[in-house]
């Protein structure tokens, strides 16, 4: 049953991220012209519910998605199994989630 849950979490997080990544790509290509500076980014994001929710959701989804993907790679290419595999995957998930939420807080909360 674990694999079913991981599979569903992987696909659900992917589906959540798809529109968010499209927006991200669009914003990047739009804003890169003429270079970016901190003021420009923060002016857009600070105090914005939209960007806070957007990036917050992305961080949660990507932590799930990347941790499961990494787990697959460790399992299939490095033959990691059992508790070691679980620990590494969970640490990666938690680390990414924390770093990501911290970054969102930094650019959204003034």
């Amino acid at each position, binding site marked *: *049953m*674990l694999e*079913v849950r991981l599979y569903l979490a992987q696909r659900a997080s992917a589906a959540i991220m798809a529109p968010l990544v499209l927006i991200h790509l669009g914003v990047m290509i739009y804003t890169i012209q003429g270079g970016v500076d901190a003021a420009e980014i923060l002016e857009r994001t600070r105090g914005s519910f939209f960007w806070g929710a957007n990036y917050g959701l992305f961080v949660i989804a990507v932590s799930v998605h990347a941790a499961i993907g990494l787990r697959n790679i460790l399992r*299939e290419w490095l033959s990691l*199994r059992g508790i070691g595999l679980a620990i590494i995957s969970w640490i990666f998930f938690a680390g990414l989630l924390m770093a990501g939420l911290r970054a969102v807080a930094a650019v959204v909360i003034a």
Partner: protein
Amino acid sequence: MPQQSSQTILDVVTWIQRHLDAGLSYRFACRVGMCGSCAMMVNGIPRWTCRTHVNKVMRDNSLTIEPLRNLPLIKDLACDMSEFFEKWTDSKGYFQGSTTRHDPVSTLSPNSPQRRVADAATECINCAICYASCDVVNWNRDYLGPAALNRAWSLQNDERDSASAERLSVVAGDAGCHQCHSQQGCATYCPNELNPTASIAGLKRMVAKAYVRGELGAGGKGRQGPESDA
């Protein structure tokens, strides 16, 4: 060795056994692509050797013929197929009816959408070519593999079968359909042009539905090996 028109890889192997190495071990039976016993790696690609023409696969006037990949070797070109067939039965790859000989024969419409899906996956000859081409089998020795899952999908769509809940919980297990990454090596090399990837995608959808509805049995561990809990 003498070249002949329409010469097959199996002809080559047979010639070698008759003229060069009488002890050479290999398998074949039907020689017409029915029995599925003659599969080998030819220049690194799994093929049914009785239906593979030398002139189609020869590279630079040389051929490399090896035993099937992903299966333990017995001798020369003969592999131990046990795990392949065990996984087939582990995934309940056999029909389980609920009627007896005293019941009337059930009628099946060959045109119903479900029957078409089942039919599309039936012509498997158990050659293990897909199994040899699947890298996930190589990376995860417990993985049930394309042929067994393809068979399970066919049975899941057989309206007469009565073991579908049980079978679904097995294919949803930790060695089941979710291990497949859809690279379609199986579908690329299956000599009967079956498409295990499509069947496995169907199983994934079926499992997802059952899971959301809370109908998925907890028993599905698939093959119980030392690694199956990873």
